[in-house]
């Protein structure tokens, strides 16, 4: 009976992991296709739609009739001061596929903007900013992770293979970096630079900083695996046959670490995404004209505004969805969770 319960748990874990990978694939594809999916230009300000609520695409109109083509009701300002909007039921705006270089957009360009996730304080399209920002946020995190992995593997292999002083020094440094509060360090480093720097430069700096803070966990694990593998007969034999250290490391020792490196990469991602988000949230990341998820949250961080416009928190939902999917994807059927 315990066996069947464990087997059921295994299926559940496998399903959850697959679902996680699927969500990640969808979000990754959306980030790649950003400009195509965006319903408007992410920096255009629609003065008539400041803090407009989301415009839901419909199939059923106000009278209860079904339509084959999805449509939206345009928004009309009712009260400019209180920012109240009403749907204009007289003029439904039909949506079409591949209109003016967008995947989905209103067929009639003059019918006003379609804002699927509402607009922010400056009347900018929340959905457009979200999908365009995805590329920047996920890009920083992905490149930073790859950097941390490369650095961690290099240092870990060197420490595990060379041993002695190199090993000792590398591991002390790793332990030191490991206890550092990531945000404090990034914040201090960011403070040395001018308040506004070009997005491309910021991208580079942020990835370098996050890679420099992320490598220790990888290095420690790789070092342990390499040190263990170096004592195995095949490694000793390779060395005895005169293989160069580089060959021994690359062909005989490093392959044993790939599984570990893969899981570590997945586990580093959430931290990197959050670091970008927090930094931009603090106003030290990407500028409003180069939106990232953190920038979106920075724009939203006004309780008075959020109270009436909770859709500004869409970026928070996106971050949580990605992190949750990553956590699902990195689930393993942990043998220690198994009662036996």
């Amino acid at each position: 009976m315990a066996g069947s319960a464990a087997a059921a748990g295994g299926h559940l874990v496998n399903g959850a992991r697959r679902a996680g990978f699927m969500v990640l694939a969808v979000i990754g594809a959306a980030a790649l296709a950003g400009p195509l999916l965006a319903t408007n230009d992410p920096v255009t300000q629609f003065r008539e739609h400041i803090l407009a609520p989301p415009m839901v695409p419909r199939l059923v109109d106000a009278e209860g009739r079904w339509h084959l083509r999805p449509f939206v009701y345009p928004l009309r300002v009712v009260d400019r001061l209180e920012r109240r909007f009403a749907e204009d039921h007289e003029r439904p705006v039909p949506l079409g596929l591949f209109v003016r270089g967008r995947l989905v957009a209103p067929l009639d360009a003059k019918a006003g903007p379609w804002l699927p996730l509402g607009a922010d304080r400056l009347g900018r399209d929340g959905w457009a900013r979200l999908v365009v920002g995805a590329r920047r946020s996920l890009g920083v995190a992905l490149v930073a992770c790859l950097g941390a992995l490369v650095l961690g593997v290099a240092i870990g292999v060197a420490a595990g293979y060379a041993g002695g002083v190199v090993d000792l020094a590398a591991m002390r440094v790793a332990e030191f970096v490991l206890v550092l509060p990531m945000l404090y360090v990034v914040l201090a480093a960011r403070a040395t630079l001018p308040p506004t720097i070009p997005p491309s430069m910021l991208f580079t700096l942020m990835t370098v900083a996050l890679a420099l803070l992320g490598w220790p966990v990888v290095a420690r694990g790789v070092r342990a695996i390499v040190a263990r593998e170096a004592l195995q007969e095949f490694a000793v034999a390779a060395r005895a046959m005169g293989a160069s250290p580089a060959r021994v490391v690359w062909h005989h020792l490093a392959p044993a670490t790939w599984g570990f490196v893969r899981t570590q990469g997945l586990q580093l991602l959430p931290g990197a995404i959050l670091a970008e988000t927090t930094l931009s949230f603090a106003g030290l990341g990407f500028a409003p004209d180069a939106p990232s998820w953190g920038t979106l949250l920075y724009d939203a961080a006004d309780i008075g505004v959020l109270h009436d416009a909770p859709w500004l928190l869409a970026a928070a939902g996106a971050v949580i969805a990605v992190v949750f999917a990553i956590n699902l994807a990195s689930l393993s059927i942990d043998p220690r969770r198994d009662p036996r």
Partner: protein
Amino acid sequence: MWRFLVARACFLIALVVAASSAMVAVTSLAPGDVTTERRLEGANADQLARERIRLGLDRPVTARIADWIGNAARLDFGTSFRYGQPVLALVTTRATNSLMLAGSALALALLIAVPCGLISGSGRFPRLAGVVGALSLALLSLPPLLVALMLTVVAVRTGWAPAGGMQSAGADEWALGDRLIDLAHHLLVPVLALGLPLAATLERLQQAAVAEGTTARHVLATSARGVGLGRWLWRALWRPTAAPFASVVGLAAGTLLSGSLAVELVTAWPGLGRLMFEALATRDVPLAAGCGAAAAAFLAFWTTLGDVVAWWLDPRLRPGATS
């Protein structure tokens, strides 16, 4: 033990010196300084030059770092450029606030994590373990920054907690009891935001430690002897995991500090993180150095505390123990 503590004290001093020197260097090398604002207000070049000399901003960075260390050794941490108050007083108040937040969050996290980890790790409650596992997975995906943002919105919309800050306006004149209740009310959102994700992390660690312990001989023996479930869980299973768990909690100090910074920014909690953020932004050199020193001291102290608690909990770690 004493040798260990002395070594840790040396480490603490080294870390504090390194962190604060780094802060002096960072704020000094950064473009602009505190006088930039004065220039914008229309001060002339002569006034600015005199102000810079008064604040010591005309001297090379190395000399400023040396000065800072020399003065700090005499417990003189300087005066904040911006607030005009002694750095020591400013940093202590703010650090106390941060410590209150971090301490409450950790307490909440431990209260949740230890029993839950025990339940899911022991293998005795498979159904409950599944629920705990799913919950901790969900909580693990909710970073403090976003939880704080969302809870604040919920709090403002429903009014069950204040939107931010540490006390209500005019609370200084209230009776002590009312002030404490007011404080607890303000603590609610930041502590939940910081504590819940931490609880999930700690639950994972506790669960793994307990699960590993289930195969130990004494655990099997106690179980075979028919010891009651509660006693078996706490005495046989949990007790041996407590010491390594305490050292791991010590290592979470960095996470706690980073998380606390994010939460302080959202909920306007007047803590160390926000003070450092402001100090860096306004190029307030002494204040930034003081904040760096306080953060480093917190880090070193917390990790040491973890090890000391581990040593106190587990006699096997003490010198002279045979095992």
